Each structure stands twice: as C-alpha cells, then as structure tokens.
C-alpha cells in the first residue's frame, strides 16, 4: 500500500465509515451523521466562545466608553445593552434568537450582525477564491513537474523557491509585494484596499491583486510539496510499474492513474487551506487593510462585541466543518474502492 493510500485509510477510519456495521446503522448515511456531528460541534463552539468572552476582562460598555467610563455612565449603558443580566440568561437569549435566524445587533454600533458580517464574508470569499483558483492549478503543475523531474535542476529550483516562500512569514511576503508593486519600484497596484463599504471586493479587482498574490505565494509551497510527495509515491507504486510493463504510454499513466490517485491528500490539504483562508488571513488583511472576516473578528474581540464575536466565530467554524465534509465526499468520488461504502 502506498503512503498516500495509507493516509487515506487513516482518514477514513477517523470519519468512521461503518464498513462492517450492522444493517440498521447503515440506514443513516455517514455524511448525514457527519452533518449532525458538525451541528453539535458548532453548539459546543458557541458555548466555548461565550465562556471565553466572559473570562476576558472588560465588556462592550467599557470599550464603548473607554476612559469616559464613569460608574454612572457604565450602569446606564450596561442596562441598555442588557449586559447586567446573568450570564446564563444572556447566552440562552442569544442562542434562542440565533437558531431562529436572528443574529442580533452589534453592541457597539447600531447595525445588525448580519449587516456587518455578510459583506465582510463576501470579501473574504472573493479573496480566498482568487487565491485558491490561482494557487491550486499552479501548485499541481509545479508539483507534478517536480515529481516527474525528480532531483533534476528544475525540481531543485522549484523546491528551493517554494521552501524560501514557505519560510517567510505572510506579512513579509505582503510587505515585499507592496514595496515592489505599490509604493517603491513600480506603482502599479494599490497598496491597501479602499473602496466604499457598500461595494464588494468582487467589484474592486485591483484591490485583490496584491493580497491574493501574497496568499498564493504563502499557500502554494505547501500544496506543491504535497503534490510532489504523493505523485512520487504513486509513480513508484506497483500499479504504475504494472501499467508500464503493459506498455501503456507514460503520459496516460501519469494523468489517468498516478495523478488521479495522488490527488487524495491534495484534496484534504486544500480543504485545510480553505479553512485557513476563511479565518486565518488576519495578517494579510491587516497589511492590505482588506475588509475581511479575520479583521472583523479581531475588531469584535477588541470591542467585546459578543453577538458579533459569536456569529463570526460560528461562521468560521461552520466553514471548517463544511469544507472538510466536502473534501471527504470528494475523496470518496476519487477513490472507487470507497464508493458505496456506508452509503
């Protein structure tokens, strides 16, 4: 068994596909149970977030009033915001509204959580899509070249370059691009995103260029190395050897057999990267003043804006759950052996 396949079977174990399960358990497909598990996870996350915000010093009233927070003003504002109620009551109220689709109002300004969250989420999706749509084909191409030309000068060149970018923190990549393309050598692209809040990043493609490019440079090395390693495994496998002995053309072996099988770890790697892109690009958002979700969550935390923290964090957790589920579904499609199992 190749290491790619063994990785896969571990993965499948971890999502507990009941290969030998009883007929009655098979009535509920594994992905339905995964969705149920996902919902339970989100519920647990919401409790954790709530507890964490209770532990943080300071509350929304304090952060609104800042150093003007006299006890008198604080009391009025806390009553207004409902912060003087018992913690459990606050949580239950919030969760009751949340499940009915009412995400509540931001505590620090007169806008609904939805109104704040949706545009930011759209911007993040725009940026993440741009990055992944460029990074994925590019990385598969470069990773495949590396694997086919293993240890040749091309492979070494790609490896050294991608390792270099891998070693650089994202903000260094971002600032480097700004110096080259925005403020210093060439002034071609904007250094930061400034567009009216009612517009989305989709309608301001120029603002996406440098942040997306930074992300491509930050995530590609990881995918390139994944592709290279798993393709090398596949090319060394017995079925490829068999195919070669049967005289099947090398190109067909590569595309139809080796590459296809080596995609399984890449799919999971990409899922992890997508989850990371949804929430972990705070640094890039900061450098480019990009109005995305990571920045929104940071702002919400520093303002102790509980409904906004809850909704944003839950959204990110949901992305994580959904993306991983999709990746597993895709892996089942890619792996004939698993088709029909447990379904």
């Amino acid at each position, binding site marked *: 068994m190749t290491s790619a396949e063994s990785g896969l079977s571990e993965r499948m174990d971890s999502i507990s596909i009941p290969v030998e399960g009883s007929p009655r358990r098979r009535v509920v497909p594994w992905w339905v149970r995964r969705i149920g598990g996902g919902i339970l996870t989100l519920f647990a996350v919401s409790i954790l977030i709530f507890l964490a915000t209770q532990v943080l010093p300071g509350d929304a009233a304090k*952060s609104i009033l800042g*150093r003007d927070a006299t006890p008198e*003003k604080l009391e009025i504002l806390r009553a207004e915001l409902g912060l003087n109620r018992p913690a459990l009551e606050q949580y239950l109220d919030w969760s009751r509204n949340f499940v009915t689709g009412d995400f509540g109002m931001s505590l620090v300004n007169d806008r609904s959580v939805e109104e704040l969250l949706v545009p930011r989420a759209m911007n993040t999706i725009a940026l993440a899509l741009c990055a992944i749509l460029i990074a994925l084909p590019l990385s598969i191409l470069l990773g495949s070249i590396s694997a086919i030309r293993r240890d040749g000068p091309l492979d070494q060149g790609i490896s050294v370059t991608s390792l270099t970018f891998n070693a650089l923190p994202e903000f260094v990549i971002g600032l480097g691009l700004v110096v080259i393309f*925005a403020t210093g050598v060439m002034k071609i692209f904007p250094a930061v995103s400034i567009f009216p809040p009612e517009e989305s990043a989709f309608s301001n493609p120029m603002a996406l260029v440098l942040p997306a490019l930074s992300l491509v440079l930050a995530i590609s090395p990881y995918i390139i190395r994944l592709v290279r390693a798993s393709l090398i495994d596949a090319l060394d496998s017995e079925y490829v050897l068999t195919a070669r002995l049967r005289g099947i053309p090398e190109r067909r072996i590569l595309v139809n057999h080796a590459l296809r099988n080596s995609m399984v770890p890449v799919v999971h790697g990409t899922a992890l990267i997508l989850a990371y892109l949804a929430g972990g690009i705070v640094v890039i958002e900061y450098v480019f003043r990009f109005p995305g979700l990571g920045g929104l969550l940071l*702002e919400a935390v520093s303002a102790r804006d509980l409904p906004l923290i809850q909704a944003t964090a839950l959204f990110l957790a949901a992305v994580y759950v959904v993306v991983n589920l999709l990746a597993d579904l895709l892996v089942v499609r890619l792996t004939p052996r698993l088709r029909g199992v447990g379904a």
Partner: protein
Amino acid sequence: MSKTPLDRRSFLLGSLAVGGSVALLSACGTTGGSAGSASPSATIAAGTPKRGGLLRVGLGGGGPMETADAHVGILANTDLARSLNLYATLFKRDPETLAPLPSLAESAESDATGSTWTVRLIDGAEFHNGKSITAEDLIFTVQRIFEQKGAVAELMPWVDPAGMKALDARTVQFNLKSPTAIFTEPFAMIASGIVPIGYDPANPIGSGPFELKSFTPGELTSMKRFENYFGDVWLDELDFVSFNDDSSRINALLAGQIQATEALPPGQIAAVQADGKMQIIESLSGATRFFAMAVDEEPFTDVRVRQAMRLLVDRQQMIDQALAGYGEVANDTFNKYAAMYDSSLVREQNIEEAKSLLKSAGKSDLTVELATAPYIAGTVEASQVLVQQAKEAGVTVNLKKMDLPAYFEGYGKWPFSGDFFNGNEYFIQAGLNQLPTSTYNITHFNDDEYNTLYKQGVAELDEAKRKDIAAQMQKIEFDRGGNLIWTYAKVVDAVAEGVNGFVPDKYGLPLTSYDFARAWMS
C-alpha cells in the same frame, strides 16, 4: 476689561476668519504657522488657495465604535476629525497661541463679575439642512450636552442648563451658577459643536465646513463641502479612511491612495521622508504623555515615594528611546504652551535624591506594578524604559501589559498607570484631571489648597492675578501631585505634494487640529 481675553493679533486673526476674506485669511494662516515655530516645514501654507479636489485622509485607531454624534462617544481620532468638520463650534483655537477665537460666535462678553455671559452668534450662519442658526439652537445644544453627559459638560460646571435666555434671534444670555473668566474655553473644545433643535445623531446635521455623505464606522467617512459654510472651504470632497495598522496607513500614503495622514509613528518618519514627494508637518505641542500614581494607594500615599519616582526618570532618554526623540522634556506640569504655564518648575534626574527619599520613607527596595496598554503611540515603550531606569534607583517596576478594553476596565482604579492629554488651557486641564470631580483624575488627587485655588482662579477676571494663582497650583502639582509628566509630544503629519494649507499646531491634535476647511489642493 470683560471681553473675551484676546491679544490684538489673535483678535485680528479671529475677525478675519469670521469675515472670510479669501487671500487675507490664507496669508494669516501662513504667518500664524511660521511665526512661532522652529520647524522648517512650517511654510506649507504658502500660495493662493483654490477650490476643488477630493482629499483622502488616513486616520489611525478607528473601529466599530466610531460615532458621528456631536457630543458623546467621541474617542477615536476619526471621531475627533469627523466632529471638528461636521460641527462648527462657538470658538476655535488658534493653532499657535491656543487662544479661543470667535468662530460661530461673533462675540462673548461677560458682566463685571463674570457671572453672566452674553454670546452673540454671527449673522447668516446656516445648518447643513439650510435652517438658520439661532439662539434657540445654541440653548438646545448646551442642554443636550448636559443631558447626554457629554465630555465638555464637566468642563463648564458654571453653566446652568436652565439658566440660558434668548435675548434675540442670535443672542443668548448665560446666567451662570458661579462666575468664571474662562467661559469661552470649553466652547472651543471638541464635542461642543452646535446642533439644530431636534438633533438626531443618526442624521448628523451640523454647521461645519463639510456635510456628511456616508459613514461606516471603522471603514470610511465621505463628506462634501457645505456650500453655505460661514467661512472658506476649498476642498470639494473629504474622505476619512480608518486604519488599524500604521504600516498600511503609511503604505497607502506612499502609493498615492491617500493624500494626507496623521501622527506618523516615529519609526516610519524616515521612510516617508525618503519618498521625496511627501511634505512633513512637524508640530511642537503642549500635548502630554505621563504616568499616574494614585495618591491614595500604597505605596504612593507617601509623597516621598511619588517624588522619588519622578526623580529617577531620565526624561530625555525616555523620549529618545520611546518616541525616537520626537518630544520635548516635560517637568511634571501640563501644557508648556499654555498662557498660564510656569516655566520655572524644572525637574532633572537625581538618582541619589530618589534613593534617599525612598530610604527615609522606608521603601528602599520598592516594588510597584505599572499598568500599561497602547492607548497612545509610545506608551508601552516608555513603560519599558521606566522599568530600566527605575532599576538604577533600586526600584522594581513590574509591567502589566494589556489590550485597550482590559486597560480601560481598570482605568481610574490602577494604582500606577498612565494617560495623555492635548495642550489644554491650564484651568481646563485642572478640571479634566486634578479635581475630585474630574472623570480623568486617575491619581485621585484631592488637595484642599489646590481645590480652593482652582475656584478662585476660574473666577478671576484679571489675567495677571489668574496667572499667579495658576502658578501656585502648578507648584502644588510639582511638589505633591501624582502625575509623572515626562514629555510634550511632537506631532509629525505627512501630506502628499500638492496638498496645502496646514500649519503646525501647538494643541497636539494632528493636521492643524483636523481643520480641513483650511486645506486646498494645487
């Protein structure tokens, strides 16, 4: 003399500002800027102003809490800038002398004792919605400031919200609770903007040089010129862009996406200068940065400990290391550029004396905890410098570093923390943080002699006598107060080539106290 205390030159400036003569105003702006400033960049206001253009300004430290309210919640720099451009105030501070000059007020006169003041509004001024500004609007505004417990309410304790009377359409008589000589001062402050009767902060109508087009907290504020403003406005449009990160703010300037930005972090000034196409505006100012020891908390209850802490600091070194040299040495007294400042009070580092004071207080191996947060640029760094300097005198300072909400959670309760102020008039400053009633009195200073002098001073119409009282008060702060005031900050702003009109400002607010009515593009 019972008229607003103004010297001839600033009075002339003020009447011109109100009169609105185009060329003369700009000429005065230039004179005002270069006359008293040592900075070579002060000639930025040269040339003949012309109309037109969109100026995009990058401002730091904004966030979701930003507000467009005229009177409450004005905390972030973006709030200050928005407030000062949407709402006209009765008086406006001269950037050089810091004297309050008539703006929306034509005059303010007191009776012989200072217990009744009469404010006359200029003729023909309008709100953004076209309504004339009347005496009733002024009365409504002052009442709203008190009802909403706005920041300036505390600075005019003599004003009786029920004691105002409209004498005619543009004259209001203020019958005060107690006499005062500095009636006009709070009306030159931010958050004292005049609003129309029935004002709704959701629809922020004022009479400032710009009217609001759109506002998204933490992101973007778009404004356009108010065509019927009572003074001159040159720009067609004005945008404020909020930034969380200083580097991206500077990058936006260098990339030409914004044309002006405020308060460059000391470490970034060289990068902006190197660009060659940026103009740097340096302002020496009376804005202070300081540490605060609570006089009613151990170990600071002993005045010897407080004085020892003040003596162990090498202020110049602190400025060099924490602010890259962008500051002037302060001596535990406020605003160096205030008319009432007493320059005879000087404190230099003296480790031996600090040690001997601590020894006599029985605190030779003193350990204290300093609460700090990045509430203004350089504070955390200065706290770290203090840790080092204190070691020399055998004092251990443990830093308690926090984010802003955590810091403000304990604001006013930390035994040892820090704060900052702009270059306020002396008695205003005393009202802000040295009286038992002051919101910002984080040292809990409550000195009977000082409190009595304050009451005498604010009511003293004779300027020389008032200055004498202020000197006695500063001596008390110097001898037994709780503030360790180490610097008057130097504010460094940058504007792109072709942006004109700004002059250095002693108040300490960036970009000539965000006075964008004076800005024009060539």
